[in-house]
């Protein structure tokens, strides 16, 4: 695909743009036709027009904004805390062998447990409070970011440290001047993965009992057989997740220009 784009002549470039622009409308039209044709049950597989109407109603009632606000705030809190703690712990385990030996075995046991498996105990610990949701997103984010920061520091090429030392860098300044900037590209890749993981975990968190949130609304709409809203909710999750990813990529390209 990429080499075809690179190899495209200027004459066909606008055609490619056209195909790109037509992609989503064609998908929606196809979906609409199939749903209305009677091949499938339109109640369970409503056409996009019904999804749009259901989503519009959701937005007009004001509930969509509450749901979105709650979901985004859970992502924001879980992602910020998980990233902060993950980077801090990862930088420590990456540099100090004692800390790494102390924590790595524990983390390697806890890391593979899917966050959704924690839902029952999180309800017992935190009830239906927001704290439980933050905890689950944090859990999903932390290990990914920790791993990236840990490996990021470990894999800094020793030549950079040699160069810094022979140029007269005092030992206490090596971290700030060399290790951190050299590890940052890897850390940012980890955080970007964590942004996606935060959205996966959000779904688990909102199924753990809450009163608002996009994933929660999908669950409620499903129980009421409001499939239009279910699909609207799914598309909304996809949209917000992809926007967050793009935004993060944009920001990180500015922050770690040397990667």
């Amino acid at each position, binding site marked *: 695909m990429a080499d075809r784009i690179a190899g495209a002549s200027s004459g066909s470039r606008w055609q490619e743009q056209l195909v790109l622009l037509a992609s989503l409308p064609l998908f929606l039209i196809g979906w609409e036709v199939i749903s209305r044709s009677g091949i499938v049950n339109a109640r369970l597989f409503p056409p996009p027009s019904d999804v749009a109407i259901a989503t519009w109603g959701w937005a007009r009632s004001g509930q969509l904004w509450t749901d979105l606000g709650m979901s985004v705030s859970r992502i924001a809190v879980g992602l910020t805390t998980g990233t902060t703690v993950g980077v801090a712990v990862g930088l420590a385990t990456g540099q100090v062998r004692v800390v790494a030996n102390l924590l790595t075995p524990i983390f390697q046991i806890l890391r593979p447990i899917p966050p959704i498996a924690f839902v029952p105990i999180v309800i017992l610990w935190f009830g239906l409070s927001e704290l439980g949701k933050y905890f689950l997103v944090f859990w999903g984010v932390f290990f990914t970011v920790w791993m990236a920061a840990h490996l990021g520091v470990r894999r800094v*090429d020793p*030549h*950079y440290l*040699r*160069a*810094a*030392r*022979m*140029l*007269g*860098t*005092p030992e206490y*300044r090596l971290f700030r*001047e*060399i290790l951190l*900037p*050299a590890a*940052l590209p890897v850390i940012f890749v980890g955080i970007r993965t964590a942004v996606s993981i935060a959205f996966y975990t959000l779904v688990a968190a909102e199924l753990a009992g809450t009163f608002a949130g996009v994933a929660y609304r999908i669950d409620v709409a499903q129980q009421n057989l409001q499939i239009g809203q279910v699909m609207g909710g799914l598309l909304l999750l996809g949209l917000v997740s992809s926007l967050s990813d793009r935004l993060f990529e944009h920001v990180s390209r500015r922050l*770690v*220009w*040397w990667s």
Partner: protein
Amino acid sequence: MMQLRIDRGESAAPVRGRLAVDRVSIRFGTALALSELSFALAPGSFMALLGPSGCGKSTLLNAIAGFQPVETGTIQLDGTAVTGPGADRGVVFQQPWLFPWMTVRDNIAYGPRMRGLPRAEIAAQADTLLKVVGLAHAALKYPQQLSGGMQQRAAIARVLANDPAVLLMDEPFAALDAQTRSMMQAYLLEVWSKLPKTIVFVTHDIDEALLLSDRIIVMGTQPGRVIADLANLLPRPRPAEIAFDSHYLDLKKQCFDLIRAETLKSFTS
């Protein structure tokens, strides 16, 4: 500090950069990498360290740089024992290892900044060196944006910014193409004529050693040791045609035979 040296006569002889390596041995596990290795360099001399791969040239350079502790023996620079890396010994590696998050200018200013020099002095020093290495136009670029030769010039400038007594160069041009390499050699001699540092130049390229140095130490393998210490008295400047000079050819043959004997030894043992 940046005084120009008019000629290579005694009157302008530099006072820093006396390097003394005395009976240095280094062991890796049970294998003896360097055995009782000794030599002394006068300030401002250009020594090429030749030898087959695996003879410990880089190990020796790392020991002088302070990256590699010695088992026995001493290394002294201007009477002070080497105990670790320091700004008085600038190292130029085979790869530039410039810091990719800094501009070329910030890379060059890095050493003086670490040593806590006043800002104005750091800036002036960086600007002077950018001119010396011909990179003034690339000052605000990042290393990734430069060609291999330009990166290596920046790496040399970064080291010179610390005004080291010794330059330790570990096959600095080996990764460059032939054209760039010969330009870099000429350029290094030009810089050396302006800033006459003591230079230890590791290479496995006999022609490179002959063109650059005024002394050639040939190392042998198993264990790494000095097998010949040759004066290279070819007149400077040395144009490309010097490669046809009979003294040049004699010296080249001598080096060639020594290295081949060592290489054969490692094949037959």
